[in-house]
C-alpha cells in the first residue's frame, strides 16, 4: 500500500489507463496547461501531450457532447467538469444522449465515457457552487453513478469506470482532494461497480453514507462506540446501480437504519434507499429509517449558516439514538 492524496489516486487511475489504452483522452476546462483547477491532472499534459490532454473553452454542453460523439466513434473519453455544478448546462447531453442513444439505436452503439469532477458542497461557495447532483443523475436509467469516499476506492473504481463500456458519472469532492489514504499498489487494481463496502461491522444500527458523508457515518459510529454500541457502517460507493442487497442484509441484522447524505432531501438517495429497504426488509425494521441531509434550502454563504446547513455527526448520532430508542 502507498499513501496517496485523493487527487493523486484519481490521477494515477487516469495515467495508468491512458498508458494502457491509446483511445482514452482527458478533456475539460484547465485540465492541460493549468494542470487542472484542483491539480488533479497535474503533469498529464507533459506525459501524454496535447492530443490526449485537452483544454476546452467554457462550453460544457459542447464538449460533453463532443465526448459522447467521440465515444460513439470508438474512443474512450474522460470528460472533466470543473465541478458538477457546471454540468447543468450540459445535462441535456447526459440525459438525452449519453443515457439514451444506445437504447434508441437498439444496441448498435456503445458510449464508453466517464464524466468526472467534484460534486456537492465545498464550504462557503454559496448556492450556485454547492449542489449535490447524485440524486438527479442516479434517477436516469442508462447512466452509472459512482461516488467514492477514499483514495483507494477512487483509484479502483475510476479504473473500472474508464474500462466500463457504459457512460459513468464519477463524483469527486474538492474538500476530499487533499485527503490522504492507503492505496493498493497491486498492478491493475480495479474495484467492481455496484458493490457497497461494509466499513465497520456492528449490530446496533446500520449507518449509510457515501462520499464525504461516509466520514460522518464513521464519526457517528465512533460516538456510539463510546456509548457501548456497535454500529454497522456502509459506504454504497456506487449510487447507480445501488448494492441494495448488502444494505438489506445489514438492516436485517441491525433492524434500524440512518442515512447520511449531503444532498437536498426531497427525492434523494436517502429517499430511494429507504423505499428499497422497507420494500425488502419491512418485517425486520424496528424503527423508522431516518435521514440526515443538507437543509431543504439553497446553500448559504455565511460561515455559520453553511455549517448549520450541512448534515452533522451530532444530528446523525441523535437520529441513531432515536431509532435505537435510547431517548
Amino acid at each position, binding site marked *: 500500500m502507498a499513501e496517496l492524496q485523493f487527487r493523486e489516486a484519481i490521477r494515477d487511475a487516469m495515467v495508468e489507463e491512458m498508458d494502457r489504452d491509446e483511445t482514452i483522452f482527458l478533456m475539460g476546462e484547465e485540465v492541460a496547461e493549468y494542470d487542472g483547477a484542483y491539480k488533479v491532472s497535474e503533469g498529464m499534459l507533459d506525459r501524454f501531450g496535447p492530443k490526449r490532454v485537452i483544454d476546452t*473553452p467554457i462550453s460544457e454542453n*459542447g464538449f460533453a*457532447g463532443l465526448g459522447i*460523439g467521440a465515444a*460513439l466513434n470508438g474512443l474512450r473519453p474522460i470528460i472533466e467538469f470543473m465541478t458538477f455544478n457546471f454540468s447543468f448546462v450540459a445535462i441535456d447531453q447526459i440525459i438525452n444522449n449519453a443515457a439514451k442513444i444506445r437504447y434508441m439505436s*437498439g444496441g448498435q*452503439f456503445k458510449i464508453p465515457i466517464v464524466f468526472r469532477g467534484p460534486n456537492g458542497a465545498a464550504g462557503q461557495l454559496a448556492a450556485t457552487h454547492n449542489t449535490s447532483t447524485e440524486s438527479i443523475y442516479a434517477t436516469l436509467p442508462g447512466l452509472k453513478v459512482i461516488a467514492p469516499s477514499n483514495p483507494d476506492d477512487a483509484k479502483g473504481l475510476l479504473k473500472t469506470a474508464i474500462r466500463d463500456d457504459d457512460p459513468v458519472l464519477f463524483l469527486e469532492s474538492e474538500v476530499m482532494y487533499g485527503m490522504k489514504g492507503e492505496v493498493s499498489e497491486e498492478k491493475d487494481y480495479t474495484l467492481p461497480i455496484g458493490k457497497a463496502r461494509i466499513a465497520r461491522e456492528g449490530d446496533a444500527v446500520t449507518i449509510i453514507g457515501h462520499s464525504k458523508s461516509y466520514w460522518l457515518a464513521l464519526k457517528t459510529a465512533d460516538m456510539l462506540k463510546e456509548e457501548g454500541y456497535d454500529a454497522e457502517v456502509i459506504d454504497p460507493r456506487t449510487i447507480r446501480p445501488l448494492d441494495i442487497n448488502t444494505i438489506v442484509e445489514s438492516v436485517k441484522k441491525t433492524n434500524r437504519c440512518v442515512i447520511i447524505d449531503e444532498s437536498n432531501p426531497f427525492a434523494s438517495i436517502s429517499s430511494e434507499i429507504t423505499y428499497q429497504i422497507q420494500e425488502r426488509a419491512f418485517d425486520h425494521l424496528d424503527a423508522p429509517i431516518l435521514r440526515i441531509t443538507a437543509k431543504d434550502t439553497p446553500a448559504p454563504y455565511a460561515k455559520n449558516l453553511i455549517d448549520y446547513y450541512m448534515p452533522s455527526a451530532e444530528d446523525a448520532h441523535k437520529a441513531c439514538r432515536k431509532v435505537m430508542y435510547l431517548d
Partner: protein
Amino acid sequence: MASKTSKTKKTTKTQVNGTDDEPDLIRTEFEYRSFQSEHVDHRELELKDDQLLDMYRNMMLQRRFEERAAQMYGKQKIAGFLHLYIGQEAVSTGAANALNVGHDSVITAYRDHGIALALGMTSNECMAELFGKIDGCSRGKGGSMHFFSADKRLFGGHGIVGGHIPVGIGIAFAHKYKEDGGVCLCFFGDGAINQGSFHEAANLASLYRLPVVFVVENNQYAMGTAVHRASAETDLFKQASGYSMPGALADGMDVFDCYRAFTEHIALARENQPSLLEVRTYRYRGHSMSDPGKYRTKEELEERKDNDPIIRLKAYLLDKELTTNEALDDIDDDVKKEVLESVEFAENSEFPPLESIYEDVYVQEDYPYLGQSKN
C-alpha cells in the same frame, strides 16, 4: 476551387491603439455561387451518366417511401411523430453521393428517413422501424425520429433540436484522433441553429480544426416559424464568420448544386477545415403529421413545387438524352415495388419481445434493473 468558392478571407487581428480619429474598417468577406442544372454539365462535376440514374432512383425512393409511410400512419401502423422529408431529397442524395459511405459519418435530426435511404439503408429496415418491429434499423426502439445504422455510419436520428450537433463534432474528433481520414456531416435545421449547442460546437470545431461539415438544411420553417421570425440574421451561413470558418450557400432544390457544394465542403473537412454550408430547401408536407400548415399559403407551396428537385433532374436527363421516359417509368415501378415490399416486410416482422425492454440500455449484461425481478 472548392476552397476558393467558400473560404472566408480572414482579416488581421484588431489592435486597440489606433491614434487616428478616423475609424478603421474591418472587412469579412463571403462568397457563394449557385451552380444549377439549367446551366451545368454533370461531367464538369465528374458525375457518371449511370450515377445520375442512381441519383434519380434514390430521390424517387425517398419520396415514395415517405408517401407510403404517411399512408401507413393514417392506418395507424405507425405512431408517434412522423416528420416527412419530401421536397428535400436533393440534399440527402447530393450529400450521400459526395460522401465515402461506410467510412465517413453522418448525424442528423429527427427528419431522418431521407438521409437513411440515401446512405443505402434498406426500405425494409426503415419501414420496419416505423412499424416498431424487431427488424427495424433500431430494433423498434427508436421509431421515426431515431434511425441508426452502425453499418452506414448513420449516428442518428435525434429528437432534441440542436442536441446532436455537439455529438457530431465528437464523431469528427474521433475521425481525426484515429487518423482514419473520415469526416462527419452534421445536418440540422434552420430552427436548430438558434440553439446554444450550435454556437459551442462551431467554435470547438474551428478551434480544434475538426473534419466536420455543419449543414444547415434551411427549409424556411421551424414548425410554423419562418426563418426571419427566428433568426436576427437570416443569411444563416454568415454565422460562420463568428468562428472564422468558411460559410457558403447551396441550392437545396438542385441535386447538382448540392453535390457540388458537399463535394467542396467535404474536401475542406478532409483538410481538417470545418465549415458551415447552408442549403436552401423546402419541405412540401407539414412539420409532422398533425400540422395544419396555416403559416404558409397554397401559392407559396405550389410555387416551390414547380422547382421540384426530382422533376428538374428528370428534365435534365431527358434534355441531355441520358435516358428515356420508358426507362424512367421502369425505375418508378421498381421503386414502387420496393416500397410495397417494405410494407409487407414490416407487417410480417415481429414486435420486439417484452424482455427486450431491458436490453440495449447498458452493455453490461447483468445490470440489476429495479423491479425487473418482479416482472
